[in-house]
């Protein structure tokens, strides 16, 4: 479980973000020591039901739209109309 995968994570840059709840700076590659009770899974392609066949580089198929296409697991999907949790 990473802060980076939480809906309460606020993007800052390529190495860190901020927790919207605690306002603490958290690092992307930092695993949470203890599972956070307030963790909410962020919408990303990698956790979308319309994401399939992921390869070793995190690239898979998006079947959430009329035209099927490739996408990647870490792509944000909070604004995507095809996202299915």
């Amino acid at each position, binding site marked *: 479980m990473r802060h980076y995968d939480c809906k309460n994570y606020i993007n800052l*840059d*390529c190495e860190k973000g*901020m927790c919207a709840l605690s306002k603490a700076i958290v690092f992307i590659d930092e695993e949470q020591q203890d599972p956070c009770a307030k963790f909410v899974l962020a919408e990303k392609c990698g956790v979308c039901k319309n994401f399939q066949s992921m390869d070793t580089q995190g690239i898979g198929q998006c079947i959430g739209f009329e035209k099927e296409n490739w996408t990647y697991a870490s792509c944000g999907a909070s604004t995507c109309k095809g996202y299915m949790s």
Partner: protein
Amino acid sequence: MKENDVKLQEILKARGIDMGLVKNAAEIEIPEAKDSTKKLMDIYYNLKVTADMEAAYWYDRVWWENDGDVIEVRRAKAVAASLAHMTPTILPYEKLVMNKTKNVRGAFPFPWVCASFFNAQAEALLQEVAAPAENEADSVSVVGDGGGNVTKSYGNVISLAKKFGMRREEIPILVKTAQKWKGISVEELSDKYSKMTPGYKQFKGIMDSVICMFDSFAIPQGREVINYYLPLQYGFDGILAMCDEKIAELMGNAEDDGDFGMSRGYYYAAMKEITKGLSAWCENYAQRAKYLESVEEDQQLKSNYKKIAEVMGNIAHNKPQNFWEAIQLTLCCHLGVVNEDPQSGLSIGRLGQVLQPFYEKDKEDGIMTDEEVIEILELYRIKITCIECFASAGVSGGVLSGNTFNNLSLGGQNYDGATAVTPLEYLIIEAGMRNKTPQPTLSILYDEKTPEDFLLKAASCTKLGLGYPAWMNNQTGMNFMLRNYGPEGMDLHDARAWCLGGCLESAPGCFLPLDYNGKMTMVPGGASPTCGTGVHFIALPKVLELVLTNGFDKRLETQVYPPHNQAIQTYEELIGLWKKYMELTTDVVNRCNNIQMDIWRKQNMPVVNSLLKPDCFKKGKHIGTMGARYNASINFESCGTITLVNALASIKKNVFDDKVFTLDEMVDGIVHNFGFKTAYETGVFSPDFRESTENSSTYEKIFAACVNAPKYGNADPYSDQIFKEYHYYMYDMTHRFTSYYGKPLYLCQISVSTHGPQGFVTLASADGRLAGTTYSDGSVSAAAGTDKNGIYAIFESANAYDHSMHQNAQLNLKLHPSAVRGVYGTRKLLEVVRAYMRKGGFHVQFNVVDSKTLRDAQENPASYRDLMVRVAGFTQYWCEIGKPIQDEVIYRTEYEKA
């Protein structure tokens, strides 16, 4: 203590006044920045410049999914998708929201514009090995390694272009996206057709030798002024309704225009797509703010998120109802434009005049106090400072020094010819004094009608050593506008609407009627495409070097120009050969850049900017098809003017007039760097640092003669005449070439940061400058340390020609803080500015800083994270500037008297 101070102290003491108190009272007390600003700046100082793939992925996906559609509609759909799918980021304490990307100092690559960089390095990137430089300009460009720049890879962060950090897991996405554009990006397609020009080989030689160091496709937009009128007047829903009306009227109807008439329908279809994208982008922020409100426990922050949701929800559809919504809408449009191309120099324009009606109504209605408006304006500065441009190392470091030149102009004249200064503009300066950030840099359009208290406020801001505001001559700017855009029908009203695009690119504008608060206000805004692509940047001293070496570049061991094989007997012959090489350079570079920009406008036309820029929406034409009101905006940019002038003066004096040395002896001295080590050997780029070799004594006399030759900036007619003749030649020469819009070029004179890398590739010059050291900065600044007769002598030299002939002229001055101390110092500073403006000088800007401080900052960058300096038309954090430019700024002549 100085003699005058002692006298003053005695007089005051005799009258019972304590000098200490007087001194303290003399300086204006500047309130601290607001708490929200301080918290967000604390975050900013620790941010890494970051590139990610969300926007690029969605652009690429939607582009290919719409293969076969009419190209402007396809392009609009792709840009709209990139905006509408980015993860919205809102920080606690923010009041204005939206970023270029999900990261705060974020940017993203544009492989459809330039793919070769990624494709050539794909393997290197995937294997996480150091990627090779893209080209020669990249290899000689130095990016500052402090601040937020990611100059090296670490952990799961990969460094791109020596500046951007990208997550390791996104590198395969970048490579996969870029590969599809191989051979069809703007860069590669334009290169394919450039090869058909007869001068292509010559063009490549010129680029490889870094005589020219910029391809227009690298930053095809910017160095222009945005126009916020349409959304402020109609709102996005209003624009969508107008698009529908126009589509109904024009789709399938050519009227009497068999050539272009049918295209108008497609234009409005494209504008509808991009407007929907902008609206969705705002709506996404409204939704994110609602979510954050729902999880926030702090009541103040909760209420703040609620307000953001309300503002973003409203501007997603409606025209703004208050100042907060209006400035947020302008920010949305600004970020929308800078996200549709690699871009720098998209200037904000005269924002304080555009938003004055909204500010005025809020004040009348008691909706916001001035302090609340100042807070918004402080936060606005952070937003603009966070705008990054993803480009190669040569562009981001060598040209831009990491800045994106979002210039905000103040003052000038309004539609009726009265002063245009508004009450809101005082607050904009105030916010710039309280929250000291590089962007937006501020520019004062100095006019004799400008209120004195406004000028004094601006001068008190300049004094703070922030590098802003810079000072531009409004009358000279208007004269240039009428001269350059008169043939396209510019009248006096539109001439009054001009301001700065980019750092110093005078850009045309127009006034449009904003209907708000029950009255109509004529608001200014930009009315042209970029005023900054074309033949850019030409190293004038390097061209002279190649005249002296018969066209052979001794650094690269390459024949760049055709050998002239002439034994030069006179100064006139020398100048004749320099002109010949200049014209050859301009011809081949111009043709290739015309192709670059033509491919760009056909394949990658602006869509957000083509919505906003008058008269695109009125004509049904995008910017690429000359929808803008004025199109004679493409130019020729020079670098190293004063180094060239001083070198010519030395050769003329020492070789041809006084005959102290032969030209061969002079060339021998230059080639052997006058017996000193080169800057690339010593690593010091400052002209004052010299390390001898065993040959030093051989060149002692000739070096001394070169150093002591007449120098520009001392009101010396000898060098000033050469300077004047240069300008009249350049005016004539540039106008003989035409842009892809079929309009004449003209001269732009900003070095930005190119005087670093272009100096780096140039041998010693006859003025005594050593090989590899940075050229003189700006275009009318004296070469560092050569101006011996004071500021007013520079003013005399600088105005040896009419500044309204060209787009700009740049004078950078460095003042010791003691020179402008106290309220009298503020007045003195303003008088210096006024003296220069009254002589006709176009622009002057100041670094008010002690050189000792800069030296200490160079040695201890961590202690100076927030130190800013003025480079050449822009302010930048000291620690984010490359060393060659740092050295040059340190060595600039420091005036202790204003």
